[in-house]
């Protein structure tokens, strides 16, 4: 295979490790307090059900 890679073989590409701009950053993350609380309630529920099923 020759260089550069034939563009017809490439589906998509994007720059790696971009610096934050404040917009939605693909591949990066954020979270709110409310989201965390919502997840914690369900996670705790699942663990309690595991104990209930196996005790």
């Amino acid at each position, binding site marked *: *295979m020759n260089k550069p*890679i034939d563009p017809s073989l490439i589906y998509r590409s994007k720059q*790696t*490790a971009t610096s934050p701009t404040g917009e939605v950053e693909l591949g990066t993350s954020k979270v709110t307090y409310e989201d*965390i609380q919502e*997840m914690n309630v369900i*996670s705790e529920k699942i663990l309690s*059900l*595991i104990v209930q099923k*196996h005790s």
Partner: protein
Amino acid sequence: MKGTLLSFDYVRSPEGDLKFIEMNTDTTIAADQIEPSINWDGLFTVMQDISATKLDVIYKPEIHQPIVNHLSASAMSPSGSFITDFTHHKEDYRSIFPTAVEDAADKFILRLAYDDNAILDNTYCATGHAPLQLLNEYNSSSLAVPFFYSGSEGEVDLLTTSSNSLNIPDLAVKTKRDTWDALKFVKVRDWSTVKGELKEDYFLTNYLIHPSSEDTENAVSSYRSYGIAYGGGLNYMPLGGFQQYSQFSIPEVLDLADDGMNKVLDNKHYYEYSTSTIKSKQNYNGVFTTERLLAADNGALQASEINTGQAMKGFHIPGSPDTEDKATYIAWRHVGKSLPANSGVTSSVAVAASKVYPNIHNDLFSIHPSGSTEPVYIGVDAAIITYNSGSDTWAYRAPHQINQDLDYIFNTDSELVPISSSQHIILHQPTGSFFTVDIETNDNLVVDTADSNNEIVISFHNPPAKIEPPK
């Protein structure tokens, strides 16, 4: 007291609430996400409540070192000042039965490593449908994504048969036991046949997506929470979490044959519809098949030309760790803009023939040095030596971590060379292969950049000690 670090994954439903997807041990977190996402105060509070002053951590350095480093640093902060002993128990990456650590009244044993003896791990983490079935069994299925499972444990069908937009899959399907290519996405054309087509190998979940992902963000996202299950009652100690976006935006169209058949999407769509961090469960070390590695005499060699005893060009950096333990050399840093004194081109001998890894995924990376007419193509697991001006450090960096605005490679005079472009490339089809070679005594190979008379040095670590997935 014993505890296990867990992560729980969620997705936001069209109605706006979070739905459980799966849970995991052996879980990891990107080094740059630990500080904003994880807080250990809950652990320290529990330890103080039970008068535990000793903290033992069972982990795999290959995947857990950053999070253990963060815990260790937190234990030395004022909130962890009561901890008198912090003991590391390092497990091999391949281990599924970690060493047992004797419990004591003044000790908290935190296990990060997967344990195939624990029901929590071998049933509810390694078997993706198990927690979904558990929630269904206890009339709590509304907390999770709707699913369909058919197998040795009977059949459960909670799927909804409404379809998403034409450019969004309708199902996420996963192998019944965790494997390297466990997750695939399906566009459903016929809901009456899709379950029968896939139920032998997969369990199926509705692909849920909130309108904001399509209307404003143009990217999918998922949510992850971290916590510790501890004690016989699996009490939950939350540590934090984050929302993760996909690596690539939602495509405008799915180019699928209009034949009315259900379609399992090509792997090229993986980073559009999953929110997985960039990783490989294969060994994509080294360079793509387009590249050549430099011999000691400056000859450019392809994979088939590198045999045992071949003298290869290397790059020596005094002070960098002389090891093939990836966790160790990835952790190495050299502060400052200049390479250590006496760094330079040297030669090493191939101790085996080149290793070739067929590219069964669709992705690779390119680094285009400033002043060069062509990029260099490399694999996801290559560890490239760069200087990062943001952190003012030299290090071995994964291709996806390279920031073309902040990272530099170098030339034979150890001067910095800017990177004009660093790209993550998705191919239409799995194509080509990657290759590398184990050399001694120096471990850093050099890529041929012939158009610049090889004055530009792109150097990467030779393959790490062989590792296998733990499960």
